[in-house]
């Protein structure tokens, strides 16, 4: 893994910081009551989005879930547009029709994130089929959680992708919880990755808090997909620090996970990558300055969102159907 160039490590570090600081601020805004749309925070899982997306080209495509602020930023989505969306503004990336759970940035290959669990998995397979039919070497990534593997749609999708050797990478972010239920409250064994082989796919388990490891696994999977070798299933083991939804630390709703959380806090993916960078000789002041920049960017995004107008009442019925004029 030491062959990952330092610029890439740095880029991943910035991505992870941008996600962390953005969400920490969103958490405050939710607490202050400024933001109402349900926000499912990604804090703690940043290495997955950053590691995977660092292995992708701009024209590669990804799909996300209800918990996709991180995927949006990692793929290159505009922070201001996301903040405006979360505020319900007309300048939002979904023009105030989506909120936190429906993000899009087609210009950088984020084709959409939606909160129906498993909903985007077949969409990613379809985008991969499109690439194949179009004769492109584009790769598509589906991000989803451990809970999504309980939906039949996920299994149907794996089978379809395997059968047709489609250029898709399934990224299962196993954060050990599906809302208030831990893994063993939902399945007999901790063996999600075995679903891959059962459907005839390569399946790999990776430490989802290690950006470098995620990036390495993703690079292989993407290369396989791009070269016609078919789909890969990556189980990235990680943990969300906050509650299922909202800013709390999820020691509520009967979930007894205080000890667990303590342990996972000590495996902070950002601290870990920072350590790598420092070991590689990057001065800590440089890293601190990056953080300052990111915080300034978040502040600008907030200001932008706040000053943006809301959609007008008479726009309610616009966009039910597509029209080219309205799409611009």
């Amino acid at each position, binding site marked *: 893994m030491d062959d990952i160039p330092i610029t890439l490590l740095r880029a991943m570090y910035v991505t992870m910081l941008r996600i962390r600081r953005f969400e920490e601020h969103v958490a405050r805004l939710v607490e202050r009551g400024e933001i*109402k*749309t*349900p926000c499912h925070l990604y804090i703690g899982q940043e290495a997955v989005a950053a590691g995977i997306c660092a292995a992708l080209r701009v024209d590669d495509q990804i799909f996300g879930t209800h918990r996709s602020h991180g995927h949006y930023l990692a793929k290159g989505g505009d922070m201001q547009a996301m903040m405006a969306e979360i505020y*319900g*503004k*007309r300048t*939002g990336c*979904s023009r*105030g*029709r*989506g*909120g936190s*759970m*429906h993000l899009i940035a087609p210009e950088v290959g984020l084709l959409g994130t*939606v*909160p*129906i*669990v*498993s*909903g985007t998995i077949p969409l990613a397979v379809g985008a991969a089929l499109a690439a194949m039919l179009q004769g492109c070497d584009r790769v598509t990534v589906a991000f989803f959680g451990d*809970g*999504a593997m*309980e*939906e*039949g*749609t996920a299994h149907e999708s794996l089978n379809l992708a395997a059968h047709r050797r489609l250029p898709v990478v399934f990224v299962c972010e196993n954060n050990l919880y*599906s*809302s*208030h*239920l831990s893994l063993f*409250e*939902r*399945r007999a064994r901790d063996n999600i990755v075995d679903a891959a082989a059962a459907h005839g796919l390569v399946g790999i388990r990776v430490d989802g808090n290690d950006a470098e490891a995620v990036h390495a696994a993703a690079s292989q999977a993407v290369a396989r997909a791009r070269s016609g070798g078919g789909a890969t299933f990556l189980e990235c083991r990680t943990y969300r620090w906050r509650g*299922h*939804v909202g800013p709390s630390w999820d020691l509520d*709703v*009967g979930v007894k996970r205080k000890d667990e959380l303590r342990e996972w806090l000590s495996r902070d993916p950002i601290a870990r990558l920072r350590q790598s960078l420092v070991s590689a000789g990057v001065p800590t002041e440089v890293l601190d300055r990056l953080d300052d920049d990111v915080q300034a960017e978040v502040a600008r995004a907030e200001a932008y969102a706040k000053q943006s107008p*809301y*959609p*007008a*009442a008479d*726009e*309610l*019925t616009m966009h*039910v159907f597509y029209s080219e004029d309205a799409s611009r």
Partner: protein
Amino acid sequence: MNTRPLTYAQAIREALAQMMERDPRVFVIGQGVWSPWYVGTSMQDLDRQFGRERVIDSPVSENATTGVGIGAALAGMRPVVIHPRVDFMLLAVDQLVNEAANWCYMFGGQVSVPIVIRPIINRGGEQGAQHSQALHAWFMHVPGLKVVMPATPYDAKGLLVASILDDNPVLYVDDRWLYMETADVPEELYSVPIGQAAVRRAGRDATVVAISYMVKAAVEAGERLSHEGVDVEIIDVRSLKPLDDATILASVRKTGHVVVADSGWRTCGAAAEISARISEHAFDALRAPVARVALPDVPAPTSRALEGVYYVGADHIAAAVRRVLHERATHPLRGRASVPP
């Protein structure tokens, strides 16, 4: 009967608890049933009271979970299957329609599927298109399903009890927007018959036929209109299928003016059916076209600015009542009252 004030959510919980106490065949399965985030207080501590073997929080597997409920019903149980949002139940429509609804008929009436499916309408709050859908009209359309939609704490309890006692698949659709409504509810077990509407306000001038959440809005509209000298009769349908035609038609024959108010989409919604039936059976009595108040044919937006104009309520009902009354004035010959005997 001894009564005390309960919220709508507490009334649901009480119905479940009392039925589980009384009948060992009753159990609960569904997503989020251990979590207030999904079901509010409508199932609070039921798992502690009856054990997690009997109050089962399920994986994210809507179709199989629903099928498990149906299979258990076929094997002698009385399951209540919870879907914390109608939107998620879209994944379970196969089991609900292909299996539960058809089962009794397909096998010549020899067996029944005594199951309650409880999808919760949980909208607003900037949640958007995939977390706000209300599709009760779909289930009205399907033979073999009964559909109830309580609008009050009293009915929330009584209709849930009736649904569990029923030998057929019943869709019990509750609305999170009603959970904090409070009213006197009897302590005892009682049931509200499925298929009977309730007159929530007697009136002479116009009939408002309202569904679920819109009953509350209609009552508000009725208050307001009374200050304008308009005396509205409000029918709470309570049960969409079977629909209590008799109560609705009696009111329409009296007032000659009707507004149907639904919390679902307009086109092919429940209000369309009610409107069509009124036209079929009380055509002579109508002095103005039946008006519909319903959601516009638009997915739910998120931005508060759009949510504010998307949802319908008392204002829309009041305006529609004024409209149908106005139309009367311009067509003096319409309606039985004007037809010479």
